[in-house]
């Protein structure tokens, strides 16, 4: 009986460790070219201990644009104008940007304390901060979004 409990506990630990992990792509490289008439928004999440196993979808309207994993980043090309990015687990976080063509923006995602699951927190950071913090992040492939949709 005791061995069975230990096995179950080990399995659950492994499951919890694996959940939230994803195969991330190459390390951050600044995009040389911004699509004409578009702005570039880097959504990134520096690698951290708190909520490391928690990932969440970042949306524009009802469309999932990426699943933000610990230590990942995603470049999103947006049309000029107001752009609201949001994420939700047990609480919602949302930021709005005034996107201008040819400009680059940085939105930082973190995970904060929650009752049952970590809460997403998105915030717009200055370019100088964003460029430094994103340096260690890895590209989140588009396939992670497709997997979440299914």
């Amino acid at each position, binding site marked *: 009986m005791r061995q069975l409990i230990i096995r179950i506990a080990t399995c659950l630990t492994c499951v919890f460790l694996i959940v939230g992990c994803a195969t991330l792509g190459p390390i951050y490289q600044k995009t040389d070219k911004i699509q004409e008439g578009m702005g570039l928004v880097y959504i990134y999440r520096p690698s951290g201990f708190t909520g490391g196993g928690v990932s969440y979808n970042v949306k524009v309207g009802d469309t999932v644009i990426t699943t933000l994993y610990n230590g990942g980043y995603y470049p999103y090309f947006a049309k000029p104008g107001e752009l609201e990015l949001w994420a939700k687990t047990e609480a919602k976080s*949302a930021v709005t940007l005034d996107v201008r063509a040819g400009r680059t923006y940085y939105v930082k995602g973190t995970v904060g*304390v929650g009752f049952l699951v970590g809460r997403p927190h998105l*915030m*717009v950071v200055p370019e100088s901060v964003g460029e430094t913090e994103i340096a260690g992040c890895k590209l989140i492939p588009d396939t992670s979004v497709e997997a979440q949709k299914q």
Partner: protein
Amino acid sequence: MRRTCNQMFYALWLGLGIMMPLIVLVGCGTTMVVTPDVKSTAGIDVRVRGRITYDGNREYLPRTVVDYPAGESGLAFQYTYEVIHGKDGVPQILPLFNPLTIVGFPIGEDTVVIVGRLEISKKNHAVKTYTATSSLDKMRNIFWQGETFSELRRKGLIAVRDNIESQMNRDRELLSGLEPGD
């Protein structure tokens, strides 16, 4: 002796029962400071017509200016604003190990500062510049997440717009004199 102990025990629980909601409530809500301090007016007393240079959301544009590119007054308005998002200064590792988190101790803070600026020029000469700043601050705890950055931004932009409108209402004599024949 036993009765005294029981009374103390109940008093302790009563105290905790009162204190806990208080702790939770402290820090809830958003504080907003708008400068300069101008007496707000209920309606729009003045409307000035001219060419507007502004490519943002029209909701945030002061309603005291009306787009009238064909006007002969030579008036032009340029409205700009800047939104600065505050830094979340609380490392998220702290609330994780802070036992007071469960009774509503703050787990983070969101701040937004918005600076709005309306420049009025006549025939390419600056006539008047209005500026307003709104600063919004919100503490989060485990029971209360509050408004998102998007909501804070919108609230701040509208406060800046209203403040500039109030400043313009105050200067209605000067502004109405800018439009010839009106």
